[in-house]
């Protein structure tokens, strides 16, 4: 077995030491710190980016909240304006209605006065017509014209009997 040839041990050990130590120095001094740095930097960068994203997200949320608040306020204001307009219109309509009511009431009372006048006038005429009618009826029945006084006395008594 060539592995057990003692004469070959020294050169292998010497070159193993040289190459291994060289590799160790290269790795420990240069390569590993460089790789560690870049991994660290990447980790920092990623966490920084994530922080920034979270920041942006919270900004967005804030903007959405303020927008929604503004929207709610605007809606409330619109409601208030609409309510005011409705109230004003209602008041106007009420006023107008009262006006019209008053006018109607005036007309009604005027008409009622006229009706009362007409009624009383008519009632006065009724007596005269009754006297005339009675005079005519009596004249036709008995052929004698009763005096004015007799007729009115008769009407009054008839009205009293009723």
């Amino acid at each position: 077995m060539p592995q057990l040839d003692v004469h070959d041990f020294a050169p292998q050990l010497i070159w193993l030491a040289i190459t291994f130590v060289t590799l160790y120095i290269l790795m420990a001094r240069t390569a590993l710190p460089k790789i560690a740095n870049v991994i660290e930097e990447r980790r920092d960068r990623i966490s920084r980016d994530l922080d920034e994203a979270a920041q942006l997200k919270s900004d967005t949320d804030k903007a959405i909240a303020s927008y929604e608040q503004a929207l709610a306020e605007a809606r409330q204001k619109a409601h208030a304006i609409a309510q005011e307009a409705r109230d004003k219109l209602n008041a106007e309509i009420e006023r107008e209605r009262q006006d019209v009511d008053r006018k109607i009431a005036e007309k009604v009372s005027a008409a009622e006065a006229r009706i009362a006048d007409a009624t009383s006038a008519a009632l006065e005429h009724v007596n005269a017509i009754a006297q005339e009618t009675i005079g005519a009826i009596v004249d036709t029945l008995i052929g004698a014209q009763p005096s004015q006084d007799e007729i009115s006395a008769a009407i009054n008594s008839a009205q009293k009997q009723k």
Partner: protein
Amino acid sequence: MAANQEGQGSEGGLALDPMHQFEIERLLPIKFGGLDASFTNSSLWMVLGVFLVSLLLLAGSKKIVPGRLQSVGEILFEFISNMVRDTMGEEGRKFFPFIFTLFMFVLISNLLGMVPYSFTVTSHIIVTFALALTVWLGATIYGFYKNGLGYLKLFAPPGTPMAMLPILVPIEIISYFTRPISLSVRLFANMMAGHTMLKVFGAFVAALGWAGIVPLVVMVGFTGLEILVAFLQAFIFAILSCMYINDALHPQH
């Protein structure tokens, strides 16, 4: 030995000795004092592995949005980082570069070994043993440095009945001292066995002519399995190292 192998190859009908791939060849003989520090094929693949890992993890600027290669690097980073945190807790953070280097070194060695005609660095017991011994010795020294003699409590887990201690403590001590051996042999044996197997089946494909389609199909499956083993063994090596260091950090668990 080489002549012996060639003779075996021509007589046995096998084109190549399956162990030939583990041969160390000195590409550039270097003597350092009395020491043989030759640049071998093993050294070549170690250097290549370090180069490729560095290329993967150092090339290009690191961007916030990663490209493909950067993603691979980051996945490996996170994977080992999680493993270190899960096994050792926050105190284990300082061992992260070491565990990462260990994992990458073993992984790239195992994977490069899957390239045809390459050399598998981790198929040599001396390499895996050196790595395992480094981890084990380091963990032991750190354990005594951090906990003083309290580190010895590791051998007597809390809640053990007194009567059990004479049996348990020697077992714990033996298991502690066999850690570097089991750690290194596991990796070495897996790599060597896998590559030997691939070589043997490869030789069958060549030797059987058109009937070689059968071992070829088997080999395709085995290659996939070996790539899985390459990852798995690197992972096991790294996580066991984490656990040994964790023992040094927290002897009473």
